[in-house]
């Protein structure tokens, strides 16, 4: 079985389970919407949202919801012993990692599709003015966050206090992703679009993605061996 086929099978398995039960998707979506609402209540004074809050709120909601989704997805794997089955199967570990990563990215992408209009609406910012750049930042940022998150969540499956440890490990490592994503999105919202600034943040995010997906592929084998 080759790499792409295994990754696709795992992705399809995750998506099928999600479509049938909807557990992670719906609960994560509701959490993200509640999160955005809480931020709206906290920041909006007399009906006027503060300048520059929208990108921060969007990405914080994505990261919080992503952390929950990661924890929940791998918890489900642990409960039905599928992770052990995956590791026992004659499938290359990097392919397993890639399949799980794509599953998380698809889930978060779906979440962002709904969150972006909501944040744009509540915080009155023209987030959808430049959809190409917005899509690039969202994709690169989500992959960056998910690449590290998938690895750590897979490793923490059998650990004690895994719910607490995942954010503790994930957020410091994701600092460059937060900075680049929030400020890239912020650059989108300026009156005159500074393409140089946008390009810098997107390229930085892409470099982060490449480096950390590569590192994760290298170390997944060593880390998941019992």
């Amino acid at each position, binding site marked *: 079985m080759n790499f792409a086929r295994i990754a696709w099978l795992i992705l399809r398995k995750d998506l099928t389970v999600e479509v049938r039960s909807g557990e992670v998707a719906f609960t994560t979506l509701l959490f993200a919407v509640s999160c955005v609402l809480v931020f709206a209540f906290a920041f909006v004074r007399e009906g006027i949202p503060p300048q520059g809050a929208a990108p921060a709120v969007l990405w914080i909601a994505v990261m919080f919801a992503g952390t929950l989704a990661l924890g929940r997805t791998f918890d489900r794997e642990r409960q039905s012993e599928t992770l052990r089955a995956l590791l026992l199967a004659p499938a290359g570990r990097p392919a397993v990692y890639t399949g799980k990563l794509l599953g998380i990215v698809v889930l978060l992408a779906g979440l962002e599709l709904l969150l972006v209009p909501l944040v744009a609406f509540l915080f009155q910012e023209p987030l959808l003015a430049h959809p190409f750049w917005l899509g690039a930042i969202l994709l690169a940022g989500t992959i960056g966050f998910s690449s*590290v998150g998938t*690895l*750590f969540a897979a*490793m*923490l499956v*059998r*650990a*004690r*206090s895994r719910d*607490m*440890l995942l954010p*503790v*490990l994930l957020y*410091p*490592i994701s*600092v*460059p992703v937060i*900075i*680049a994503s929030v*400020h890239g999105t912020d650059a989108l919202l300026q009156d005159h679009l500074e393409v140089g*600034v946008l390009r*810098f*943040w997107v390229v*930085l995010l892409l*470099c*982060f993605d490449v*480096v*950390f997906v590569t*590192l994760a592929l290298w*170390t997944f084998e*060593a*880390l998941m061996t019992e």
Partner: protein
Amino acid sequence: MSSKNDSRPHFEETIVNHSNADITLPAWFVPAAVVCGLMFVVSPVLIANTPYEATMGLVQKIFYYHLPSAFMFLLGGIVCGIASARYLATRNPHHDRVAWAAAELIVLFGVLTLVTGPLWARKSWGVWWTWDVRLTSSLVSWLLAVSYLLVRRYGGPGSDRLAAALALFGMANVPFIYISVNFWRTIHPLTTVVPTLPSSFGVPTWFCITAFLLLFVLLLRMRVRLEAQRARLDAMYLSLDE
């Protein structure tokens, strides 16, 4: 092989064999500790006798402890990262112990740096904190080291490999943190001018760096020894169960 009966499991022997070298303190340890202690006792005298720096006066003298602490903070990061990589590659418990000890030293010297820094900043720049590149990157790296220690303590089985991966990822992340914070800060100009550290490496600077380096090595060695002793104790308990 061992002269004992075959019921003793192989991994116990591995634990004992790998920990023997770490448990016995080397001959240079006690003399080095004495020298280190003496150096720290002498250092305030040496620092007090150096001439005042032109612009900052007395306040600048905290630099003689701040700079070595920062250097040891960085050195700890390098040691932890390399030891973690070697541990993931070879599974030799010695590297794991070194990585754990180095992470604790990152936290320790990081606290010293992040406390002496703002104390100095308050007097020389007028603010406790600015979102300067070096300060912010140091803070994030320190947080990574703290999360490493939390994983070791609360992670349960398999936390040694997870922590090694975290250390590796953290080390790979340092350039990204630096670049992203740097660009984040420079597109919004700073209101305070951040001076670079004085480059005159006089006698007290090197003296303090040497003292701190000696302290780092001594603490690392002692901490590795502690972990090796714990491992040996575990092996003894396991052999008792038979």
